[in-house]
């Protein structure tokens, strides 16, 4: 296995893809959004509820897709459940910037485990996979 492949499929990512966090039925949440990756047919439905203070009180998703898309949604759910809306939107933007970097620079520490996806930035065709859940969450938050 090459170093590139190893950095793309870190143990953390493979673990999350096998045992995803936040999987559940989004139909009971306040805001839901369905997102599709047209190039492969992968899809995700994200569900979010905010509490009175604008924090994410509930974050569940269902979907099917490759290990990158599923692990990415899982890491995100792990990290952003309970976060204030504004913080979540910031993290999404940071995640997007990291993926568009073509691998240059260091991801900010605020991305925590999500920094593991930096390896994706070198694979232009996989960026959409890694973004799938994040874009869906962004759409939910923008509704809220």
């Amino acid at each position, binding site marked *: 296995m090459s170093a590139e492949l190893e950095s793309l499929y870190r143990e953390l990512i493979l673990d999350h893809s096998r045992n995803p966090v936040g999987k559940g039925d989004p139909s009971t949440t306040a805001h839901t959004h369905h997102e599709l990756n047209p190039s*492969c047919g*992968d*899809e995700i439905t994200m569900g979010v509820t905010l509490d009175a203070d604008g924090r994410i009180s509930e974050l569940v998703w269902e979907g099917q897709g490759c*290990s990158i898309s599923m692990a990415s949604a899982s890491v995100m759910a792990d990290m952003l459940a309970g976060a204030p809306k504004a913080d979540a939107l910031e993290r999404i933007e940071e995640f997007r910037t990291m993926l568009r970097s073509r691998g240059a620079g260091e991801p900010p520490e605020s991305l925590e485990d999500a920094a593991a996806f930096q390896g994706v930035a070198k*694979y232009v065709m*996989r960026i959409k996979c890694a973004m799938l859940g994040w874009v869906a969450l962004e759409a939910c938050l923008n509704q809220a």
Partner: protein
Amino acid sequence: MTISTADAFARERYPYLRAHADRVYLDSAATSQRPDAVLEAEDAFARTEYAAVHRGSSMATGEATWAFEGARERIARFVGAGEREIVFTENATDALNVVALGLSDASAGLGAPELALKPGDEIVVTTAEHHANLIPWQRLARRTGAILRAVPVDEHGVWSVDDLAALVSDRTRIVAFAHVSNVTGHIAPVADVVEIARSAGALTVLDACQSAPHLPLDLGALGVDFAAFSAHKMLGPTGVGALYGRAELLDALPPARTGGSTITTVTLDDAEFLPSPQRFEAGTQPVTQAVGFGAAAEHLSGIGMDRVRAHEAEMAGLLVDAVLAVPGVRLVGPQAGAERAGLVSFVVDGVHAHDVGQFLDDRGITVRTGHHCAQPLHRALGVAATTRASAYVYTTADDVASFGAALAEVRGFFGADR
């Protein structure tokens, strides 16, 4: 000019393959790499002969027009068509749209009333079609009130001529189908379909994208009414494809795209169109690309399409063996022993196609993953995406062996074998 066996199938004749000597390119069904001969023909034309064609009267235009029309002649000969029966288009998708949009215009009273569709008329496609041979017909149906019917596929994604016959009736106006499926590798019984369509009085539209590059093809003898194929899948450049049509149909079909070079007389109110092929070639044609397309057809003729087919039948056998050798991998399309084109699509249990592709890519093997522009077929197969490995003249047994060895490791890497 016949090309020697050594040269015909030599990787060394392909700049891209030379530049990536350590890689195995198994994505020729998506697009092919060009041999030196084709790149040089294009380049020489661009550097010394290039000018506008069919416009003005200069020597430069004359020379360029001669090269452009010479390319048309070569391509016509290559697929068993008359010269006036080959229209240059942007790609095969465009060619299929020229037909569907032309029939829309006929139905809207812009010419050729005999080709008009009306509410209740039917269009038959198969569930295995590429989106390029499906969506244009959906849109034609929407515009005219015609009904689209799809021949079902079995659990391997293959349709039967009996099921097709059962769908065709005297309401059927068009039967559109792929000669070779880009996902399953299934080869359609074209002569049977033509006979069924003809006796129902329906027109046939053949998507020849995956056959023109790989099989000996004689469109005139097959008796289809229209056909479409792309240069970039047959050793030629992007930016050009071809529509074949029987001359009398092409002369009647209204041109959907209009503009310069297509007309006889234009007033502010109206325009009269030239016969085929000019009526369809609006604007400055993909001239350099057509010259490259002609060189590609000449190159394939030099190899001989029988030899191409024999080579690929061999590769198909090796690809099928490689896939079936790996536990937990499901082969799509015709099963072992059955005839198929030189490609295999498959599903790896427990591993998403993107991840399969990524792993193979890391091993230096380029394959294609996704729905391959055939979502209805994938829905019928019960998967969102498959992985496809496809061969061409430059594919070797070693390439397939590398592919097989890498594929054997995929499930282990992703822990899907546990």
